[in-house]
C-alpha cells in the first residue's frame, strides 16, 4: 500500500489505523532497554546537554537525597528503554554506500502492522508522568503499546499521519511502574522534489 498516491484516497489508506485507536499493539511482553542504567552512560548522556546536577554524577549526593545510587535524568527514559542496535549473530550493515542505513534499527516505524508503509518518520511530541527517579543499576523497559490517536494529514514534508502511543515504563526487577509516556510521531511519505500538489 502506498500513502503517496496521486489522488485523494491516500487518507483512506489510514482508515484501518484510525479504526484501531484504543488497541494495544504490544504482544504482552515488556521491551527492555539494551543495558541497565550505568554511571558512565549517565555521564555521557549529560555531556551534550551540559547538565550539571550532582544527583547524576556523585553517589554521595544522591544517597544524601535518599537514592541508592546516582539517578538517571528523568528524560533519559527514552534512551534507556531503546533495545540494542546489534546483537551477537546479527549483521547490522550490509552496504558501504555513504548514506546506507542499518539492516534494522529499534528506532523505526516498520513494526506497525496496519496502514500505509512510509519511509519518513519523526517524533512530534512527548508527554511524561514521572512516578519516581530511576537509579544506576536498574533496568527499565516499555510495557504496553496502546495507540491513542491517529490523524492523517499532509504537511510540508509529505503525506502521512500523526500517531500517538502510550506505554508504561517499568523496572525489570519487579515490574514497578516508574513512569508513563505518550509519544506522538509523524509517519509519512516525503513529497518528491519539485512535485506540486
Amino acid at each position, binding site marked *: 500500500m502506498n500513502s503517496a498516491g496521486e489522488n485523494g484516497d491516500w487518507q483512506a489508506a489510514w482508515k484501518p489505523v484510525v479504526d484501531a485507536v484504543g488497541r494495544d499493539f504490544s504482544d504482552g511482553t515488556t521491551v527492555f532497554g*539494551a543495558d541497565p542504567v550505568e554511571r558512565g*552512560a549517565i555521564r*555521557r*548522556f549529560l*555531556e*551534550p*546537554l*551540559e*547538565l*550539571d*546536577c*550532582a*544527583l547524576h554524577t556523585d553517589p554521595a*549526593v544522591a544517597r544524601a*537525597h535518599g537514592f541508592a545510587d546516582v539517578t538517571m*535524568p*528523568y*528524560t*533519559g527514559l*527514552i*534512551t534507556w528503554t*531503546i533495545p540494542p*542496535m546489534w546483537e551477537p549473530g546479527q549483521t547490522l550493515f550490509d552496504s558501504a554506500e*555513504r*548514506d546506507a*542505513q*542499518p539492516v534494522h*534499527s529499534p*528506532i523505526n516505524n516498520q513494526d506497525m502492522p496496519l496502514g500505509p508503509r512510509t*519511509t*519518513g*518518520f*519523526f*517524533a*512530534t*511530541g*512527548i*508527554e*511524561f*508522568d*514521572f512516578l519516581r*527517579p530511576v537509579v544506576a543499576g536498574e533496568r527499565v523497559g516499555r510495557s504496553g503499546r496502546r495507540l491513542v490517536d491517529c490523524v492523517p494529514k499532509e504537511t*510540508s*514534508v*509529505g503525506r502521512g499521519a500523526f500517531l500517538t502511543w502510550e506505554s508504561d515504563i517499568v523496572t525489570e526487577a519487579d515490574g514497578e511502574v516508574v513512569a508513563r509516556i505518550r509519544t*506522538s510521531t509523524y509517519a*509519512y511519505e*516525503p*513529497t518528491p522534489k519539485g512535485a506540486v500538489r
Partner: protein
Amino acid sequence: MTAGRAAGQRRFEDVREGEELPSVAYPLPVYRLVMAAGSNRDFNSIHHNTDYARATGAPEMYANTSLLLGMWERIVRDWIGPAGTIRGIRGFRMRAFNVVGDTTWVHARVVSVTTEDGPGTVDIEVRCENSAGVTVGPGTVRATLPLRADSAYGTD
C-alpha cells in the same frame, strides 16, 4: 557550574508566579548533534546527515527528541536544584526543526504554584526557540521544591 548549583537549594517559598528562569543557550554544531546521538542512542540519520535529512523534507539535520527533552530538564534542574523533583511534562510539541548551524534557546517561567497536589508544586512553562521562532512547546514541566523548615505550609 550551573545557576542551580551556584544559587544554593531553592525553596518553594522563594518562588513567585511569573518568575523567569535563567535561559539556556544551545549552539547546535554537528559536533553536539553527534555527541547527542551517541549518548542518547537515537541514531536516526535525520539527526546527523544533511543529505539524508533533506531527502526526508527537512532543511538540514536537526536535534533529536532526547536532546530537546534534556534541554527542558536542564533549565528546570538548574533552577530546582538537587532537592527538587520533576513530576511530569506536558505540551512538549516539536513545531519546527532545531537545525544544525543555529542556536536553540530554552526559556522558562513559573506559571503557577500550589500546595494542593502535595506541598511545593510548581508548574513551569518551557519553550525552545531558534532564529526562526518557537520550535518546541510551549509546554509545562511540573516540579516540586522543598519547603522551609518553618514554612507556613508545613514541612515536607
